[in-house]
């Protein structure tokens, strides 16, 4: 594979390097090179390592909520099963596909930056954004549906649908009022987890806008791919969170419905 990224300086150059004034041939320092790194490669790898460490903190951050979900699903199994089955699987599945497509565009964007195709890079970043926004749009629709059914935790939350499902044409076993109360816990975790995920997407879309602007100026088509690469890591990580949220929240209780 042809390596188009800046190659490391040769070892023998080291003694010649008193600070930031060094210019090497055949390769010159990129304008984005920061003085405290010896080489651009060191800078790039430090950046991606830093991003990975940040993603570790994200794993632990979401991890707390995943554990809460695991615990309460086992404690209040009937309530969680019924409540989970009220989620909209087609929309969830479409959203999964949208998000995967968005991730695919992002991956192509990284490739475009690596082979220095500016127009393709901008196109891919725009498509990544479009699919990201589409995901949020579908999510808003789902949230709205929950609002109409009084499934949003808080003062307006109603357990009516779970205590007397037949009256609402829901094909589920009725829950006792005590157990039905715990559906609220499911919906709280649903909103907390998907909301936190959506928040990450919104932040990501904001950064994408900035990256598109910079890519359009040609900043990432001269061999400087680190910001695109590192943002790609973040975006794919957000995808991965959803890849777990979707089955855990939407799917794993479907076989219990009749």
């Amino acid at each position: 594979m042809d390596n188009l990224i800046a190659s490391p300086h040769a070892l023998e150059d080291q003694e010649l390097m008193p600070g930031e004034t060094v210019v090497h041939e055949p390769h010159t320092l990129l304008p984005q090179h920061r003085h405290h790194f010896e080489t651009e490669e060191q800078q790039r790898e430090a950046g991606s390592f830093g991003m990975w460490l940040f993603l570790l903190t994200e794993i632990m951050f979401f991890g707390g909520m995943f554990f809460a979900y695991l615990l309460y699903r086992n404690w209040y199994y009937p309530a969680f099963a019924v409540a989970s089955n009220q989620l909209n699987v087609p929309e969830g599945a479409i959203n999964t596909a949208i998000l995967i497509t968005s991730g695919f565009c992002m991956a192509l964007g990284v490739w475009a930056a690596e082979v220095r195709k500016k127009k393709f890079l901008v196109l891919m970043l725009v498509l990544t954004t479009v699919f990201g926004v589409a995901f949020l749009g579908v999510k808003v629709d789902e949230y709205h549906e929950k609002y109409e059914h009084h499934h949003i935790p808080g003062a307006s939350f109603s357990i009516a649908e779970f205590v007397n499902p037949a009256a609402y044409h829901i094909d589920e076993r009725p829950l006792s009022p005590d157990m039905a109360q715990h559906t609220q816990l499911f919906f709280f975790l649903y909103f907390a987890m998907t909301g936190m995920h959506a928040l990450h997407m919104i932040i990501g879309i904001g950064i994408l806008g900035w990256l598109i602007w910079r890519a359009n100026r040609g900043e990432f088509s001269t061999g400087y791919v680190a910001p695109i690469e590192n943002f790609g890591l973040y975006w794919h990580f957000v995808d991965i969170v959803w890849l777990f949220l979707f089955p855990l929240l939407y799917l794993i209780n479907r076989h219990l419905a009749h």
Partner: protein
Amino acid sequence: MASNPHTDVHDPANITNPEHAEHHIVTPFQYGLVFLTLLVFTGITVGAAYVNLGPMNPVIALLIASFKAVVVILFFMHVRWQSRLIKMTIGAGFFTFLVLITMTLSDYISRAWGLW
């Protein structure tokens, strides 16, 4: 400790950059294959959810999700071509997450022990 700086994954004698891996460019074709795999497995996981497999339903859903996550990590996130350091870092993250889950569960699953 010094050895050939071009072959060692962790090489302290590589004075510019220890723990270095060559940059690898994944082709759009490879990305396309990954994309298709992810879509197919999304379909499978939705389909499998409606088949009553009893306690195996969540297990299968989680296995498929994990498989998809691994594919994304390895290919979209380039980890397959990364240095051992990055791989270990990711491993450490998931390990700590599992510590959180298992050690906390050790409390919850044993609360009723000896009380019946």
